[in-house]
């Protein structure tokens, strides 16, 4: 009898233990899958490139620690160096820019800047307003921004308004990029760089990327002072998107001293002159909405840019042009917009001070490549950083 009672007492316990163990196993499995998938999505299989590193780098910056944020497309991270601007003028800045970043993305970017920083000035390079309609609906141009933006209302609005394919893939990029294991070599090295940035808490080069080439124009180079009155209408989609963005800025209470629209320097040739004309049109539209616009395509005699030496193609400057322009532009912002050097904590100062030797080594490395005639994409990736650190350690 006693034994039977004991057995009866044990039975429910055993059953309960079995259920408990099963629940523990299932939850552990789901957790393991969730964590692995998250890791893969964030670092390994995220189609990472310099855009990823740059935008994620922006979110690694301490809150309210940036004095200037520059929004735009490739011109921004090729032509401007935040490290050099810091060295020259003492203010902190960061390029929130991606390759072929279109005007459709601007609002979400500004909202993200507002959410995380309180800059003295936001600069917008207007290249995203002169793209053709095809560029505005290109999925990749949206994804370079949205994939690297944390999930919040700004990202949701950006995706809901502009997504051209399955929206779920914008919120769970793993669905789209899981197959990038077939480019394992690239994914692996980028993931290493992203993890290093994450662990360190900042990136060294503040998102710059360039090419070790000197561009020699093959077509006729225009003197922009001769054609600066010429204009061309924007493409329809860009026109609508850009005007909507300007209305948003007005509606959000941004004033002329908080936002500056610029056109960074280009080599204006017969091949891209229409872009120059559209840039002039953008200037008019910007002024129409009460904001300032400066075209460094038209007004660049003081910079000392040499179109036969300082570009790596007609749209982007090389390291020589980058240094000249950054120094000029940083001083311009300091003088005209009264950007004051940042009040940084000891730790923040230490971090920003570190960028200077890295940038110097970056320039040295790029210069060596140019002299050797090696055309390399020079950005903050594993290979390049290893070379840069070798130069620093010499």
């Amino acid at each position, binding site marked *: 009898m006693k034994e039977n009672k004991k057995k009866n007492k044990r039975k429910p316990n055993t059953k309960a233990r079995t259920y408990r163990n099963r629940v523990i196993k299932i939850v552990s*499995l789901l957790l393991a899958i969730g964590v692995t998938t998250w890791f893969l999505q964030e670092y390994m299989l995220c189609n990472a490139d310099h855009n990823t590193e740059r935008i994620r780098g922006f979110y690694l910056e301490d809150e309210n620690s940036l004095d200037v944020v520059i929004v735009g497309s490739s011109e921004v991270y090729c032509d401007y160096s935040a490290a050099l601007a810091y060295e020259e003028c003492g203010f902190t800045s960061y390029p929130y820019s991606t390759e072929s970043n279109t005007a459709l993305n601007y609002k979400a970017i500004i909202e993200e800047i507002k959410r995380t920083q309180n800059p003295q000035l936001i600069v917008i390079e207007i290249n995203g307003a002169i793209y053709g309609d095809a560029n505005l609906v290109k999925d990749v141009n949206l994804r370079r921004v949205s994939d690297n933006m944390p999930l919040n209302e700004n990202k949701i609005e950006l995706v809901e308004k502009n997504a051209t394919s399955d929206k779920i893939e914008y919120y769970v990029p793993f669905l789209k990029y899981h197959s990038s294991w077939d480019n394992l070599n690239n994914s692996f090295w980028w993931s290493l760089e992203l993890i290093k940035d994450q662990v360190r808490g900042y990136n060294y080069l503040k998102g710059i990327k360039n090419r070790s080439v000197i561009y020699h124009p093959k077509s006729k180079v225009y003197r922009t002072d001769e054609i600066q009155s010429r204009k061309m209408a924007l493409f329809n989609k860009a026109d609508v998107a850009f005007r909507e963005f300007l209305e948003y800025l007005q509606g959000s209470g941004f004033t002329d001293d908080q936002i500056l629209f610029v056109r960074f320097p280009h080599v204006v040739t017969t091949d891209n002159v229409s872009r120059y004309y559209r840039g002039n049109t953008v200037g008019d539209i910007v002024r129409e909405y009460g904001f300032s616009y400066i075209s460094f395509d038209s007004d660049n005699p003081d910079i000392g840019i040499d179109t036969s030496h300082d570009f790596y193609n007609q749209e982007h400057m090389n390291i020589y042009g980058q240094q000249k322009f950054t120094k000029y532009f940083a001083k311009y912002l300091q003088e005209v917009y009264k950007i004051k050097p940042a009040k940084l904590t000891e730790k923040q100062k230490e971090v920003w001070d570190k960028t200077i030797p890295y940038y110097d080594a970056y320039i040295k490395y790029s210069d060596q490549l140019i002299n050797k005639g090696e055309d390399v994409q020079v950005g903050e990736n594993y290979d390049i950083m290893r070379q840069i650190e070798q130069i620093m350690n010499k």
Partner: protein
Amino acid sequence: MLVYFLFPKKWQQYKWTVLLAASYVFYLWAGVQYVGFILFTTLSTFLDALWMDKVTRSSKDYLRVHKAELSREDKKKYKERVKRKKKLILALALVLNFGILAFLKYAKVLFLGGTGDLLLVLGISFYTFQSMGYLIDVYRDTVPAQRNFFKLALFVSFFPQIVQGPIGIYSSLAEQLYTPHDFDYDRFTDGFLLILWGLFKKMAIADHAYIAINAVTEHYQAYGGTTLLFTVLLYAFQLYMDFSGGIDISRGVARIFGIDLMENFRRPYFSKDISEYWRRWHISLGNWFKNYLFYPLAMSDAFLNVSKKIKKSKFGSTAAGSHIAKVLPTSFASFIVFFMVGIWHGANWKYVAFGVYNGGIIMLAVLLKPVFDGTLKRLHINRDSAPYTVFRIIRTFMLVLVGYVFDVAPTFNEAMMTFRLIFTDQNFKVGYGEISELGLNELTMLYLAACVVFIFIISVIQERHSDTTIRAMLSKKPTIVRWGVVYIGIMAILVFGVYGSGFNAADFVYAQF
């Protein structure tokens, strides 16, 4: 699943309605336009079976009542009449339902000149075969007619098997569907593993291979013999992974609900001859044709009479004649079965050729068996030796590959062109260049090669331990190993699976048939 397992205890006898509802939700979700077809098949099958059942019962009653009055001859004549009547009733449903199937498959070619689109009704072949199999069983009086329309509707539409089978047999499937099943953790894990395995085969292997195959078939004439040979080899792997993967998923889902669907593949590429291959490949279709076409043909008076005539002839008294008289009915019936299988695949001469080729090989193998046996004896080759077994497996696989050429090539003429190029246009360098442009980079190719090796190893283990499954073997391993395998399986599907925009993981090769 939750609704099924949490169904109130007091209404257990209606638990099957959850499966019926799920099946129709699944079917409607796939396309509202399809539902009319499946409802028609269900209704016509239901009414036809009841009609036959009524005739059977009334004839039995009649014979019982008039037992004393009727002579043996009268009874025989009466039974013949009843049989003829039942045959007509059966034929009515067969003609109607196979007529719809044939119309949808062939109308495009016969009436639209090969252009235009006809509705591709989801799973129509599979549910038509399944329903007609049931009707034939009712006709044969081996199963009773189902008197509940909704129960029959569930048998016809059971969602895990509707897309591509396996084709169920009423006597083994129906009762399982109607019996209420409680949640069983072991069944659940077993089913879950089967689903995982199927998803891996389908999404992480077959769909990668499909990218290259599709690239070739879209510009078929642009490729040389090496690429075409590679494509046929890849197709053999892709088709097996796609179809068997889909079946594993179906079986796994059904298993979770406590229902055992029949096995549809038993490592077909290990077959030692073509007949064995067809007993291991698409087993449920093979069974269907065997039960409902092969046996009726082979045992028919016409076939038996031919056999008898040969036996009685002068030729029949020779050894060869005696052998041919013995095997002719079955070998000719096999030929017709494969001819029908070919036609079933679609309205294209290449499918006819596919059927004739397979049927022809089986027919010749049976008819010439004494010749082959004699040759082996003369060459002192032991049929059961390992080298000869390996030779037979490779030979059979190559014969299967020849059949696949008809599948891969868009038309019969292009299939003939493929044979010519495979034998006359082998250039590894050109082929390598072409293959590297098929949308799969080197790493993906390496991955597929690794998958071939992996599947081969798994298949060898399965073949050697055919009395148990890998899942059963796994269940005896420590928890960490079992759950580790599940974790790796899920991650492998998530990472290596082909899904996302532009891909539909629910596209199975055999769903189109």
